[in-house]
């Protein structure tokens, strides 16, 4: 008998996998983007099943609410679906790509099976730690003490990105001036 947590995992996992496959397979990039949204949301749910509620919320805000909106907006603004092949050509190349991915998946699966399958479930969290606020406060504490340097560097990175993205989008000509 599946417990509700197990059911949630299987359901959300299935949704994320199906729509993740949709991202790869849909010919129209707009549909790919919409599939991506659903994948993001179900991944947020999966974070929820792992008691990472704050991260789930951030996943919704950042990925589903910001990044993918940007994707959809760009696709709609520029109508980037000119007649072109969806997938790369070449039997050998595609064969190698598929084979490499398959081998990688197989090895990952085998490794996980050999290493972690003996651990049946998660230990239940202690009652105090189940409070989402407490967990988020822990996260905040380690973010602002242990990872304070990374945090400030992220600030610089975001500044650079903000400047760089605007500058990039300003470029009208190429590097080759009329000569």
């Amino acid at each position: 008998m599946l417990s509700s947590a197990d059911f949630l995992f299987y359901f959300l996992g299935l949704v994320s996998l199906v729509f993740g496959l949709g991202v790869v397979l849909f010919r129209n990039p707009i549909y790919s983007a919409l599939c991506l949204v659903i994948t993001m949301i179900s991944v947020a749910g999966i974070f929820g099943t792992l008691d990472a509620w704050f991260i789930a919320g951030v996943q919704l805000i950042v990925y589903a609410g910001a990044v993918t909106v940007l994707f959809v907006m760009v696709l709609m603004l520029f109508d980037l679906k000119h007649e072109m092949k969806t997938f790369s050509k070449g039997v050998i190349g595609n064969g190698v790509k598929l084979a490499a991915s398959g081998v990688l998946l197989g090895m990952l699966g085998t490794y996980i099976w050999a290493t972690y399958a003996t651990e049946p479930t998660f230990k239940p969290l202690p009652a105090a730690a189940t409070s989402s606020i407490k967990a988020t406060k822990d996260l905040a504490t380690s973010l602002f003490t242990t990872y304070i340097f990374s945090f400030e560097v992220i600030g610089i990175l975001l500044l650079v990105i903000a400047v760089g993205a605007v500058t990039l989008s300003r470029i009208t000509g190429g590097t080759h001036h009329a000569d």
Partner: protein
Amino acid sequence: MGKDVFEIVVNCVKMLLIFLVMVQLVPILVWLERRVSAFMQNRFGPNRVGPLGLIQLLADAVKFLFKEPFFPEKGMAVMYYGAPIMALIPGALALAAIPLGAPFHLEQFTWLGREWGPYDFIMQGYDFGVGIVIVLGVSSLGAYSLLMAGWGSSNKYSLLGALRASAQMVSYELALGLSLVGILMVFNTFSFYDIIAQQTGMPLTFNFFGKVHSIAWLPNWGIFFNPLGALIFFCASFAETNRLPFDLPEAEGELVAGFHTEYGGFALLMFYIGEYGHMMVASALMATFYFGGYTIPYVANESVANWVSSGGLATHPNWAAFLTSLIFFLVFLLKVFLFLLIYIWVRWTLPRFRYDQLMDLGWKTMLPWALFNTVLTAVWLAFSHRPV
């Protein structure tokens, strides 16, 4: 969901009720909007169908249902039909994550010949514990409905309207999110219940350089701790819901009707339901963060419960608990309605912005002020907590 059938059923019914409240509030709000606007413009408004024209909306709904279904020639079916459905979802999901009343406790009771264990119910669809983060996350999905509608109807005006709307939405989401940081800092939690609990009780109590002061005649509301944040939040929520004076996406003069140009019938109504849903979410957040949530100013929570149980309204403790919670729910609804009235009032008072003014307001005015509010609150909290 629950440990037995009763709890599961109650929880499901509760969610359905929240949704129905949202859907049912829409006709009332539309009626209110029309009546209030008529009142403001010295007209009558709809007053024929039913008393005060209250049935008018039912008639409208039936009329909408029987409209001719229209599908644009080059439209994309999935997106065209998905957009109105998608419009419903974020608002309702966010509303269900906000506590609408005090949680109540049911003692063990006998019903249908068996014992039903003690229950704790919350007046809310679900509680993740991180409250506001989930609400913000869910309501940020609102942009998809606009984009889907704009793209799905393959009309230039629709697309432009959708892009405008979503750009506006995301711009104001920044100010909206940032304006809440200050009040979160004050309350030191994400959970709505904790936030409301900290606003309960009468004298406004605050820490001023190590000494605790209180002002006896003011309720302990968030607005007094962070008035600037409240103002920015409220203004940004107007833009977030695409209401006047920020309803540029549907500026009739320029864009026909914005992203829902090609919509008619009930699908159009669903967009309106979504919009009103967002309004309700914003009002509910406003009430929760800055105006004490479901608590009653000048009245302690216990005295309400005492009044219910001793005043003879309900003798059984379970009914008393339920009734108390219902009273709090009504109080909350009243607060929400007040804010909704302000929405309507503003709509018929202020003219519409130009699009560049709108963007300037969002990025160059509200965002810096929200940032200023955050810094001010942080510095204030950091310094006022230590004695001089």
